[in-house]
């Protein structure tokens, strides 16, 4: 059943499409007329010419297939994409065949966030040769975006038919919420020497070794263990760090422009605070994201915000965890959403963005 379903899907959405070009319509009309004339007159030379026209169709199909078959396509785009900021996309076309030269290939690309566009024409691609075509794209809003299939098209050899090979590249990207200026920061969040700032760790007691993470100081690498383990290992010290500042975003509300603006503001606030070197934990109703310090942790938070829909009170453990953090820390930050804050709130700064 699965196989039949696959075949049916292939039949309904074939990876090859064929269109008649302007000259192709004329050619087809002539071929049909020639066939009728040959049948009516019985004149063998008309049959011969009709045979020539039919074989032109066959050869055209075979050669266009020869051009399109086996071409490798790759799409490259940045891993971090922010809404309303243009980013480059590169489509790489490669002819992996050791002998075959490919002629007259057109490349087009499409995505959820832009309509199909012709990237360019490649007159020839010699054996083993690859060519890159690039363009700029832009996502207007946060969220998950999927690229469409890359289309390789050719009118080779005679220009009567345009054959399209659909290359189903399953690429997708998450556009982080757009940047928005955060005008007023609460006093508790401004300045580097506020609670939650990281302390220096030199001279403290050695705790153990752990695999290195992005952003680790290379001076902490333990070379011998790294060589033995085959991966970078760094020394960890006991730190007397103060607990990070717990930040909660009240994600309740209704979908719409206002909610989008709120998300963008929260994302901008996170970027701003981490850029200032502050240590934070972040939570929404649905999820507690924990510490937001390293670039990977920031990306995780932004990805969460990019995909977030308006939440509901009690829809997850995020709020409870944040409240415990805030009690332990002796305060926290509550970013107000569309609705009034729930009662009772622990001792915290309520921020309206």
């Amino acid at each position, binding site marked *: 059943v699965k196989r039949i379903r696959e075949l049916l899907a292939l039949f309904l959405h074939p990876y090859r499409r064929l269109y008649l070009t302007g*000259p192709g319509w*004329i050619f087809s009309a*002539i071929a049909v007329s*020639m066939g009728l004339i*040959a*049948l*009516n*007159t*019985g*004149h*063998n*030379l*008309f*049959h*011969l*010419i*009709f*045979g*020539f026209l*039919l*074989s*032109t169709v*066959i*050869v055209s199909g*075979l*050669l266009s297939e020869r051009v399109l078959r086996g071409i490798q396509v790759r799409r490259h785009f940045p891993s971090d994409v922010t809404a309303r900021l243009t980013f480059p996309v590169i489509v790489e076309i490669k002819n992996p065949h*050791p*002998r075959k*030269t490919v*002629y*007259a290939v*057109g490349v087009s690309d499409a995505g959820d966030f832009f309509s199909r566009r012709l990237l*360019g*024409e*490649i*007159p*020839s691609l*010699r*054996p*083993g*040769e690859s060519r890159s075509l690039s363009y700029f794209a832009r996502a207007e809003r946060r969220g998950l975006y999927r690229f469409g299939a890359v289309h390789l098209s050719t*009118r*080779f*050899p*005679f*220009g009567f038919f345009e054959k399209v090979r659909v290359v189903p590249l399953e690429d997708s990207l998450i556009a982080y919420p757009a940047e928005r200026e955060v005008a007023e920061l609460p006093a508790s969040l401004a300045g580097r020497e506020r609670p939650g700032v990281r302390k220096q760790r030199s001279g403290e007691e050695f705790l153990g070794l752990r695999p290195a993470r992005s952003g680790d100081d290379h001076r902490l690498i333990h070379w011998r263990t790294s060589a033995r383990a085959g991966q970078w290992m760094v020394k960890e010290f006991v730190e007397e760090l103060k607990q990070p500042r717990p930040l909660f975003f009240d994600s309740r509300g209704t979908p719409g422009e206002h909610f989008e603006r709120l998300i963008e503001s929260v994302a901008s606030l996170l970027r701003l605070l981490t850029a200032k070197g502050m240590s934070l934990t972040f939570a929404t109703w649905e999820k507690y994201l924990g510490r937001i310090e390293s670039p990977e942790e920031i990306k995780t938070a932004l990805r969460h915000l990019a995909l977030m829909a308006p939440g509901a009170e009690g829809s997850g453990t995020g709020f409870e965890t944040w409240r415990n953090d805030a009690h332990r820390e002796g305060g926290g930050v509550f970013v107000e959403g569309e609705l009034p804050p729930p009662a009772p709130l622990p001792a915290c700064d309520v921020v309206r963005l």
Partner: protein
Amino acid sequence: MNLSLSFFLSSYFVVFLGFLALFYTGELSAPYLLISGLSIAGGAAVDWRGGKALLPSILANLAIVAIFLLTLFSIFVLKSLPIQELVHFLLALQSVKLLAPKKRRDWLQLYLLSFFSVVSASALTVDLSFAGVFIAYLFAAPWALILLNLKESVEAAGQDPQSETRLLNKSLFTLAGATGGALLVLTLFFFTLFPRFAVSLFANSWATGPAVTGFSDLLALGQVAEIQKSGAVAMRVRLEPPGAAAKLHYWRGIALDLFDGQKWRKSKSDGTWLRRFGDRYQLGDQMEPNGPHVRQNIILEPSGSAALFVLETPVALFGRLGNLQRDSLGNLRAAYPFPFPISYDVLSQTTAVRTEPVPGGSFLQLPDVNPRIIELAEQATEGVQDPLEKARSLERFLRGKYRYALDGLPVDVEDPLSTFLFETQQGNCEYFASALAVMLRIVGIPARVVNGYLGGEWNPYGEYFLVRQSDAHSWVEAHVPGAGWTTFDPTPPAPARSRKRPLSPVTQLFDYLQMRWYRYIVNFTVADQQDLISALGRPKRWIDFNLRGVSWDGFRPWKEVAGSPWITAGGILAAGALAWSLSTLIKNRTPLVHRPSQAATERYRRFLSLLKKKGISKGIAETPDEFSRRVGEKQRDLAEELTSLYQKARFSSANPPEILTRMDWILAELRKSRP
């Protein structure tokens, strides 16, 4: 050559082929030939120089409208032949388009006009020349379209086709050649399998063939002589059993029975339509089961005559010829003259007596005959009683006393027969035949004049007779009691100087190809298709049957030529050179992949093979470095350097072209050095 120039040359060649196809039809009048030729040359010269078009666009458009109106006027008012006007229209349009500015669309239109020219030519001629043009077109037109497509692609990529030379490489030429070959094979495949119907819905009545013969119901004395001056092909005949070829054959066409002193004609039109069973026509006569017979496969060229030619006494006829008639004189004719060569088979009995009834007095009818002729006939048969012997006496008399000539014939005189018999005493076959027929009638033997062809030239390649218009002949059939209608030929042999020259081996070979073209392309029928389908089960039998006409006898003269020591030596040298080139090509065949590692590996392999020839082989467990150190002192430095270069190209991102060049140089040095 850049892409632009190549496209330009190919496009003009396609246009020229369309013109050539029409030229070979012989339907083009001199002014059109001149205008078309000049426009092709003019357009090419302007495009070559990249100058301004000779005809501005507005003028070109006006000219096209004018040509269209003139064509309509010519067809509907002047009542010209539509097909001819269509050809003229195509050529005029092509001339205007060639001289006007050309964009992509204009080139496509020119290709289209060229294609229509080829189609029109196929309607006007079935000559082998069309096959040549068609095959050339089959390769040239796709090539031009490929170049047009590539040119567009290059322009779309923002490049200049004039500076694009990289595209025109071996790979593209190979692809284009293979495309042409595939088109040819597939064209023949579709041609063979495309369904045919036994009867065409529309006959090709709009096409006309050259009317060159006098084979009609009316023959004026002197008319056959005009035909005999032509060397054009009349028909090709293959005989079965082949032994029948040894005999001199009378290809019977039209028999005539009424003579008015100057012209022969038929006394009445009494043709009856023949019954038809599929492709078989029943001629009425029953064949003796074990009697001698001969089967003729005849390919008849268009001649403007509806007469069909057969041998001796036909009993059955096979072919797709539409309705056929047969009259009381035994004449076979089609409903209308065929505009194209036709093919048919006839089964004839060779010893049968013609049993057509003697229709009254028309075979004894005499015009107002000169008494001297009566006297002559009686003198020639004096003392002979037997009718057959009388006829032979008259035949011998004419053969012996008169001379054969094609010139100085008594044409446009009041009594041509008397002039021939008593004054000039020389003439061609029709005078001899007329004289014999009249003299036979004078002595009371029913007689009639028959027009047809005599003999033909044997083609050793295809084992068939090539009958030309110069083989046209007249003879006499006399009704002899007991023997029925018997053939008498009073014409003496032509003198050596007036005999036609035999065809050269080259012409014979060409004619053989032409015959095959007519038989298997122009006259390909439903029956042939059925043969092919049935042959799927027994291919060997089918091949044997269809190649039965192919003979190597024709190649004997070539064998003599090839027997010359110089030719043989040249042939051996050429074959050797070809074999060497091919082996070198195969040996040096390197992948087209431009990966330095592969190219370097290829060179390293050559290095190993070179050293192996010098007696130094690399062990299986030996590394390249170890091996290079083992090479003799003289070559060690080179070997080590080559190994090092190979490893660099293979395992690092070193500059590949320089490495490859250096490796080539080292290989050349190693070849020169001795171990």
